[in-house]
């Protein structure tokens, strides 16, 4: 069975991000066609839609559905569908979808653990821009000019981000005008 677990989608309770092994499906973008088990849920309205990311599948609940009631069925369908990676087809992806995904994930992290850490040290991290897989942030407060900030960016933001988004190219600190983690793998 393919390893699979759901994570909360930052800012949207109707969506879940199902983490799957990176590169398993080979394609990224809004889902167009899927193996029968998953396609059935899209047809009957359990799911309103799905998007394939490099290391995840994001599913959106249909109207009037709930994760508690319908989640187990959706999980069953995903397990069945992931066993046939060839059956997944997506709409053309111009790269902007990838950046949008990245943006959501960065927001999630800045609202969550990474941001909390910065705030607890009297600083803060703002998202400036996401373009072509490069995330630009600005450090403020105590973080600005702090020698440990580079480590924070690298450890807490970039590493967590790369876990979910293998397409991430770099995290850049706009305030320093230099890349914080270009040397990262």
């Amino acid at each position, binding site marked *: *069975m393919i390893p*699979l677990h759901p994570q909360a989608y930052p800012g949207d309770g109707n969506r879940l991000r199902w983490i799957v092994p990176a590169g398993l499906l080979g394609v990224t973008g809004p889902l167009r066609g899927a193996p029968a088990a998953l396609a059935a849920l899209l047809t009957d309205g359990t799911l309103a839609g799905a998007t394939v990311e490099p290391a995840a599948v994001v599913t959106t609940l249909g109207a009037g559905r709930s994760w508690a009631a319908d989640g187990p069925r959706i999980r069953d369908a995903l397990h069945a569908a992931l066993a046939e990676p060839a059956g997944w087809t997506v709409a053309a992806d111009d790269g902007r979808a990838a950046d949008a995904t990245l943006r959501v994930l960065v927001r999630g992290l800045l609202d969550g653990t990474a941001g909390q850490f910065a705030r607890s040290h009297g600083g803060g991290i703002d998202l400036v821009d996401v373009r072509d897989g490069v995330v630009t942030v600005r450090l403020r407060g105590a973080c600005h000019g702090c020698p440990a900030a580079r480590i924070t960016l690298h450890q807490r933001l970039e590493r967590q981000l790369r876990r979910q988004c293998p397409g991430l190219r770099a995290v850049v600190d706009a305030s320093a005008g230099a890349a914080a983690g270009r040397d990262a793998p």
Partner: protein
Amino acid sequence: MSAGCHDGGGGGAVATAAPHIALVGAPNAGKTSIFNALTGLRGKTGNYPGVTVSRFVGACRVGPHRYVIEDLPGTYGLEAVSPDEQIVVDALDGRLEGVPRPDALLVVVDATSLRRSLGFVAQVLARRLPTCVVVTFTDELTSRQGALDVEALGPALGVPVVAVIGHRRRGITELGDRLAGWARWPVPALAPPTDLAQRDAWVESVLAFAGYRAAEQHRVTRRVDSVLLHPLWGTVVFFAVMVVFFQTLFTLAAPLQDAVAALFSWLSTLVAAHVHSRWLASLLGDALLGGVGGVLVFLPQIMLLFLLLSLLEGVGYLSRAAFLMDRVMARAGLEGRAFVALLSSFACAIPGIMATRTLPSARDRIATMMAAPLITCSARLPVYVLLIGLLVDRSARIGPFGAQGLVMFGLYLLGAVSAMVAAWGFKKLGDRRGPLVPFYLEMPPYRLPSPRSVLIAVWTSAGSFLRKCSTIIVTTTIALWLLLNLPLHSTAQMRAAGVDTGRPAAVSTYTVEHSYAAGLGRLVTPVFEPLGFDWRITVGVLSAQSAREVFVATLGQVAAAGDPADPAAALRAMTYPDGPRAGQRVFGPPTVAALLVYFAYALQCMATVGVIRRETGTWRWPALAFTYLTVTAWLMAYLARTVVSLVGG
């Protein structure tokens, strides 16, 4: 967090107002150190209603907030195969009377066995309660070349995750701060799967996301284990460890014991000098100082026993011993889990019998319960030490070892072997072979035990020994004192019987010889006559039926009546007053050997009888245990007396 965690005392008001937070997790995951760190060691111990699983509840204060922390029994799962697990399941569902359903949960997981622990986390998250995962032993994971990104684990599980290194108190402050937001802890939108294959896939995925790399086998542990778990060397080391264990018990405790004894004899001289009422002086001097004091002398040894036991456990040796003994247990038809139960019986049979709840098979539980009272518990220790002192000289040596320690080791061995035989017998008596349930024995890496937890173990055991002394032993001792000093004899009566009333020793000897206790003892003596017990020993043996230590207290009283200045010498010099052995020493080798063996087998502990009743739900098993153990005790004591008489001439 201000480190101000205090105990809730009775906790009635606290319990209703403060949120109820339960700690769940596998045994050895570090749950107890977290509980101690949060509640500041001031936890209250009690029992869950209807069963004897110990319940630990404590109050914790973080800044202005108060919490009631409940430490639930350690379990590997919530599928409820054993009674212990049933308690946890019932507690989480709020089905235990008097135990409120927890408002939030802290799941404690050991980072070095995270793969197994996450299966448990999945079951807990399915309960849909606000949950925070506490990861322990991350330091050990790292030192063994493992890896875990604790920050990624939180989003993967969908709940807050805090890393705590309990014995260093690292992360406790953060955990305390986390508690404040318990009502806002996110509950994952979708619970982890219940299907086993899907759950494995879930665990796998979460581990991968959190960059988990399993710890390598501890290098030192692996090397040491290659010797300690070796079928031959391991067994040799095991017996060597045990011999050293009992040697230490004698040599290290002796000076401390002498100090306690000196304190009590000083107190006796004070009583003799300052209390002029003969009755009060006798009550204080003979009953309390001679009796209870005689038992308290063994406090150093009890504490030392628990110190050594908790050191062996803390280092991780006890699980190795369990592993080695698993083979031996298999001969008796029992599994290694039963050994763990029998092992706790070395402290006291009661936790040992309660530990049988981890055994899923009812037949194994009964067989283990019937065997557990044979294991040498700490209550036998004072009796053994006293009797061995009468039997073997303190300076006698066999090779490099003190003879007293070796006799003690032999008695422990006798108890253990007899327990095995009993378990084997009861297993045979039972009906058909049940299904074989897999047995999980955790082999923790060798760790330096935290001084804190060792000290707590010693402190708790000393406390419960002192409680026993101040309640049951004091009561029985005073009752015996009354029996030994009544009826009253007038001076004229004594003169008529030819007693020199001018000598207090003669008076008290006469009083004791003609007391109700003597009458009772003489009535029962025919039963114990073949074992060489005179009426005084018989009274002692009967009184020990309430608790074994009372035997020491009884002999202490009888001896103190004979010679208050040197009770030990009085015991040694005691002779049979009448009968065919009149004039011979009472505590000669044959009688002492018979007594030792009698105490090794007899079920002289009403608390144990009560626990067997509660655990089996019927009087049948305690009645059977009591009968078979008492009969065996008498027969084996008779055998011991005969053998020692033949050998000793």
